[in-house]
């Protein structure tokens, strides 16, 4: 998945934005639930209140024997007397004709459902058109007059919804206000915390900028725990990069300088070409060989400095590399009929570049195939938590300590070396040292040389 540039722009903005959305959803849901439960309890309270008012209305009614009607000389609630009070009442006969209406109901029209049998209670709502609407309750009862005549009457109480709705509005307003203030406070707090948390990142950025402009050599110390690894790796990377640049520079300078001598020799030889006796091609060829060796050495050395180190490299399985090299060497030196024993765990890993490992082992194994007498053994053992020793042995003539140290250091004294003396071991030495390891040459139990490479494992 690709991040949009805006989202990728700032960690702080991403955290704050995500949290703001989360708060909005959370608070929105909370407000909705609270309001819903408030509405439910308000509805219950309203129903109970209507019921009470209805009962009070019935209790306050008095019979008018002459007309066989009912009257309410003293309404149970004073509000029924004043218009616009929001509390209204009405008493109707069984056939729907009103016998009494509260003065507050002036101009109001109640839509009544069928009265039902005596004893029937009803509650319902009536939309108010432009007004707030009404909540109504009715009860039909049989009224027994003094003379024993029974007449059905319907008592109706209506209450404006306005106060209830006002209550809900006020509640909602309060809720949103408080929650909004809370969300804003949370975000502000978080922004403050993030600012503090992110400060080291800003510092790293600043220090990197300083390094780019050359004001700083490497990152300072004292980073929080989470950044310590990054800072250390970055410093290691920088150090290695500087080392590499240094080596390239040195290689280039060495290369140029060391080529000057054979070039001068060739020029001198060519100047004397018309001499008697004429200079042989062999002399020029010898100089060319020398130049070739110098170029080969410096090139391999510069390449060796390439990726030494462990940052950003997947560990390389050692056993397959050994097998590949053994197969290659068998193909190149078929008449040597080398029997090669590989005693290396499949799990063994080298922490570094695969090409470097091939280069080191290739050179060492090439020697074993060339100078051995047909038997080669490659074995490995772990010598420290992140370090292993790889041992390549043959049954040839071997190297005495003086020869060994000469072979390991040969690259450095290239001008003195004679053709036929390989630079393979010297290249291995350079590479292994670049990985912080070491090369030892010992006498093998097989009779020949045992070359031991100590390398970082992983």
């Amino acid at each position, binding site marked *: 998945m690709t991040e949009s540039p805006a989202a990728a722009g700032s960690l702080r903005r991403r955290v704050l934005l995500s949290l703001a959305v989360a708060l909005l959803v959370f608070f929105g849901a909370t407000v909705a639930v609270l309001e819903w439960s408030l509405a439910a309890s308000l509805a219950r309270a309203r129903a109970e209140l209507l019921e009470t008012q209805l009962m009070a209305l019935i209790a306050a009614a008095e019979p008018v024997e002459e007309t066989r009607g009912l009257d309410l000389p003293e309404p149970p609630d004073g509000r029924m007397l004043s218009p616009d009070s929001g509390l209204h009442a009405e008493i109707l006969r069984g056939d729907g004709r009103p016998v009494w209406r509260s003065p507050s109901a002036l101009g109001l029209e109640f839509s009544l459902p069928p009265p039902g049998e005596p004893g029937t209670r009803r509650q319902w709502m009536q939309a108010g058109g432009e007004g707030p609407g009404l909540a109504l309750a009715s009860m039909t009862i049989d009224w027994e007059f003094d003379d024993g005549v029974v007449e059905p009457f319907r008592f109706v109480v209506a209450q404006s919804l306005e106060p209830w709705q006002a209550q809900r509005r006020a509640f909602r307003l309060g809720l949103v206000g408080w929650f909004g203030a809370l969300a804003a406070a949370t975000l502000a707090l978080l922004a403050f915390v993030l600012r503090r948390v992110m400060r080291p990142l800003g510092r790293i950025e600043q220090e990197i900028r300083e390094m780019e402009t050359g004001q700083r050599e490497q990152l300072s110390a004292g980073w929080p725990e989470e950044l310590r690894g990054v800072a250390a790796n970055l410093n290691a990377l920088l150090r290695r990069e500087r080392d590499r640049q240094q080596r390239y520079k040195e290689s280039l300078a060495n290369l140029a300088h060391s080529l000057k001598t054979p070039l001068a020799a060739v020029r001198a030889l060519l100047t004397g070409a018309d001499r008697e006796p004429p200079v042989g091609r062999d002399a020029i060829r010898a100089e*060319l060989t020398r130049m070739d060796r110098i170029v*080969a050495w410096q090139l391999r050395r510069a390449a060796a400095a390439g990726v030494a180190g462990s940052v950003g490299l997947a560990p390389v399985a050692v056993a397959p590399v050994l097998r590949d090299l053994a197969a*290659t060497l068998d193909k*190149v030196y*078929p*008449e040597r009929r080398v029997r090669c024993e590989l005693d290396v765990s499949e799990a063994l890993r080298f922490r570094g570049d695969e090409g470097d490992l091939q*280069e080191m*082992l290739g*050179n060492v194994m090439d020697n074993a195939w060339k100078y051995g007498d047909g038997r080669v053994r490659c074995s490995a053992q772990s010598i420290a938590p992140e370090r292993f020793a790889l041992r390549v042995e043959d049954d040839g003539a071997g190297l005495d300590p003086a020869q060994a140290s000469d072979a390991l250091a040969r690259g450095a004294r290239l001008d003195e070396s004679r053709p036929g003396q390989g630079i393979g071991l010297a290249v291995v030495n350079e590479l292994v040292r670049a990985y912080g390891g070491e090369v030892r040459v010992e006498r093998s139990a097989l009779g020949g040389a045992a070359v031991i490479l100590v390398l970082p494992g992983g």
Partner: protein
Amino acid sequence: MRALLVEDDENLRHGLAAAMRAAGWQVDESADGAEGLYLAEETAPDVVIVDLGLPKMSGMELITALRADGRDLPVLILTARDSWQEKVAGLKAGADDYMVKPFHAEELLARLEALVRRSAGWSQPVLDFGALRFEPAAQRVELDGEPVELTSFEYRLLEYLVLRAGQVVSRSELIDRLYDQDYDRDSNTVEVFIGRLRRKLDPAGKLKPIETLRGRGYRFALAPVGRD
């Protein structure tokens, strides 16, 4: 012997081809991989020398294509990169040997000699037929321990037959492998040289190393000793 040399650097190619011709090779040259593959299929060389960095088709691709075609002729790669990673990759792709530039032409010739010898089934540098012994690397022939003096052409003719010991080699194949293309195929030089070889290798007439199979060609008839 016929070799195919695929190398895009003109100076190097010409220099190598000249050195190889001087050593008795028939050399087909190509400057790019695609043409090289075509020539490898057309001319049926005894050995192919391939530079890894070629235009149109890389050396590695050329080798892979050759091997995919089921051709098991020996292949030697030339590379300017002196790294084991590249050597391993080249030999895994199907090459049989490698040379890192720059190199001496003599070294290349010795390697080619060894490759051809090996592909003929000889893993050891000395081809032993009892009374007759051949050492291709040194272009040396011994009869009963004494060196036999051969001209360059005589040696090449003999080597071609010896590496195919027991097989019939036709006269036209010999001409194709040992002479330039503009050689007059009707001349009887081959017969003349075979006659000379017989006299030099078998002065007493007892050994009979080279048989003539009328209408079919020649065969080196001695049985190898200690061949694996």
